[in-house]
């Protein structure tokens, strides 16, 4: 479904990604793990068209999207929950959700908002409040809800666990699993390797802008190198 070939990207003159190749099949839940500064965010930004790669290609459903503008990428069905959630802080929770459906013009938007509210009841309570005034966990729920509002085929998540209490992380990942079960393809970028490897099917390990390892998540969890570098064992 998504295929990346020999992608190279710079971030402010610094080489952020070099020769990154990976693929994600329809319905899979894949993670990319790596330390801070390994290039994870740059990769997601490149997929979403927020950043132009220096070379290499990105294909989505066999269409080359490398040079597409971000709004056209979004229209193809790729949603991203960016680093730091990227909420519209001085708009209400409901306005944030509605903006998530910006690319849609069908009449099921209200229905989907109700679905989000039934999954995260707290958001219904806070629907008229500014998104920026919510707690970190509630903000992450808004971010997840807003991404779902576009009915994405592929959902990219940048550090969904960052700064959140374990119990909230569990709730967020529960929502992501439900989404996966409904057929959405998911690509999670995480610093928390243990978390990422325990929920995903396959994983890639990114180090200094290069993919250094890839494979079945369960096997990577047992790998001595991964254990030492990322699992603190």
């Amino acid at each position, binding site marked *: 479904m998504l295929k990346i070939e020999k992608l190279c990207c710079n971030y402010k003159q610094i080489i952020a990604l070099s020769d990154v190749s990976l693929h994600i099949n329809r319905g899979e839940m894949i993670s990319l793990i790596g330390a801070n500064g390994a290039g994870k965010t740059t990769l997601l930004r490149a997929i*979403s068209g927020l950043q132009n790669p220096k070379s290499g290609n990105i294909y989505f459903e066999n269409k080359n999207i490398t040079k597409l503008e971000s709004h056209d990428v979004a229209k193809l069905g790729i949603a991203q929950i960016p680093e730091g959630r990227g909420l*519209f802080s*001085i708009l209400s929770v409901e*306005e944030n959700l509605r*903006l998530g459906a910006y690319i849609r013009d069908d009449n099921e938007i209200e229905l989907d908002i109700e679905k989000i509210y039934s999954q995260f009841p707290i958001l219904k309570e806070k629907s008229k409040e500014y998104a920026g005034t919510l707690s970190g966990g509630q903000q992450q729920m808004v971010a997840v809800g807003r991404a779902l509002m576009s009915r994405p085929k592929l959902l990219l998540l940048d550090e969904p666990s960052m*700064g959140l209490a374990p119990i909230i992380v569990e709730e967020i990942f529960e929502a992501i699993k439900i989404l996966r079960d409904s057929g959405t393809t998911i690509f999670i970028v995480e610093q928390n390797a243990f978390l990422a490897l325990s929920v995903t099917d396959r994983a890639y390990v990114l180090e200094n802008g290069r993919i250094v390892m890839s494979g079945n998540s369960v096997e990577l969890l047992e790998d001595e190198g991964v254990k030492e570098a990322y699992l603190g064992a």
Partner: protein
Amino acid sequence: MNEFLGFLLSGVTVGFIYALVGIGFTVIYNSSGIINFSQGEFVMAGGMSTVFLLKAGLPLGVSFILAIMITSMIGIVLYKLISFSKESSQISLIILTLGFAIFLRGLAEVVFDKELHTMPSFVGDSSFDMFGTTLTYQSILIMIVSIVIVTLLYFFFKKTKTGQAMMAASINVDAARLMGINIKKILMINFALSAAIAAIGGVLLTPITSTNYEVGIMLGLKGFAAAIIGGLSNPFGAVAGGLVLGILESLIAGYISSEYKDAVAFVALLAILFFMPGGIFGNTKAQRV
């Protein structure tokens, strides 16, 4: 007391014009981070085009609408220049808007002339007495039109999809792009909208203060002061800022000396920047991390 009320009302009238110019500053600043110093020239373009279209024999309504369209097009041209510019630092782009302002002044001088022009009031030059002071119908028209524009803007930002997209883009550009919002289109709409609102201000003001090719310099600076007083990122703050500025000016011109009138804006501007850099009505962006 009646005198005071008279000053107050004329301050409110001109304050609304400053507000319309100020709104333009905030709308463009919010979406692009650029202070558009051509904003005053948009006011001039609106007024001057209407005057000359009237002279060419077109009816008032048609001239008015054409002038607004012309000015919006000028706004779009400025946007295109900015988007084609290889320079992306905001300070260079701000200088570009300054250059564009000088260009527009020169163009107006060539296309029109250097004379002072006025035009008949839309609603007749008559006035009436109210609360013991005299009020012209043109003043009332300015107030009503301004209030209508501000109200429409509020609903546009709050209730329409495009308005919400503009809000989103002003809060977080990258997140807005991820939603599928075409930022370039939004920016272009912002420039056209700011120009159109400024042009309306220019047309409304012309019967009262008359216009010429360089009237935009002062109006632009007053509008900028209004925007700063209001907090720069908030269009509705600019409205309040414009009113505060207009009233202050009018009172000082009335009670002290009209010589000091123009100084008010700049003293207010400096005072705000020194003591309340967020403006009186600045957005206190709610954020919890």
